[in-house]
């Protein structure tokens, strides 16, 4: 069956509005809850979609860092490593932490990618539950779930996550 689900194409660069929409929708839903109500299915879907886009933007940023970091020369990495060991220049603690982060970047990026994909899975699980709550025809529910799973598999392959 031909999929009619939208294709999730992450933007090339993270949006400058990154995370803002998610926070606004979270706040709206919290306000509804605080007033004794409950966000309806569409409002929850909207929030989930914003979360999914935020996670995909995060993955785009991680990929950008991964690619650029892989081009750093061994000589530069050695110099930074020596600098951290000797602490020979006056930097504040936050900047020393930045240098340390840079040296550990491949591991950090990989760990965050695993977290991103786990959150992506949680998001699509919940989208599936909302489809059931909305009482969509079972065939449509299955079609949507399959399209989401397929996209998740693509992300896992890209990041070498099992």
């Amino acid at each position, binding site marked *: 069956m031909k999929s009619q689900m939208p294709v999730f194409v992450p933007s090339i660069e993270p949006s400058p509005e990154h995370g803002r929409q998610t926070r606004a929708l979270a706040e709206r*839903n919290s306000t509804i809850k605080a007033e004794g109500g409950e966000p309806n299915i569409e409002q929850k879907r909207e929030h989930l979609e914003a979360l999914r886009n935020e*996670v995909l933007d995060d993955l785009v940023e991680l990929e950008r860092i991964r690619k650029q970091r892989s081009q750093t020369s061994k000589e530069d990495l050695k110099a930074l490593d020596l600098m951290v060991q000797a602490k020979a220049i006056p930097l504040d603690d936050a900047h020393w932490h930045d240098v340390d982060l840079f040296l550990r970047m491949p591991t950090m990026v990989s760990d965050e990618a695993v977290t991103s994909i786990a*959150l992506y899975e949680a998001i699509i699980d*919940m989208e599936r539950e*909302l489809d059931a709550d909305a009482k969509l025809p079972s065939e449509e529910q299955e079609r949507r779930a399959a399209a989401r799973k397929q996209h998740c598999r693509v992300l896992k392959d890209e990041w070498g996550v099992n």
Partner: protein
Amino acid sequence: MPPSNGRARQDTLSAIGTHVSAMTSRIQRLSAAHQWIQRALVTATPQGLSRLDWIARRLSQT
């Protein structure tokens, strides 16, 4: 749908949102650190200086 289902979904949604927000903050921190160092690394070393000295100088100036 029983009301408890909806509340549970909303709680899960809020929890996912909290985790996504924390992760985004961590990634932005990584990105900022990466960009700061990268700006120092893209410059060529002037003659007479070691690469280490040059990178150290660049980082301590920014």
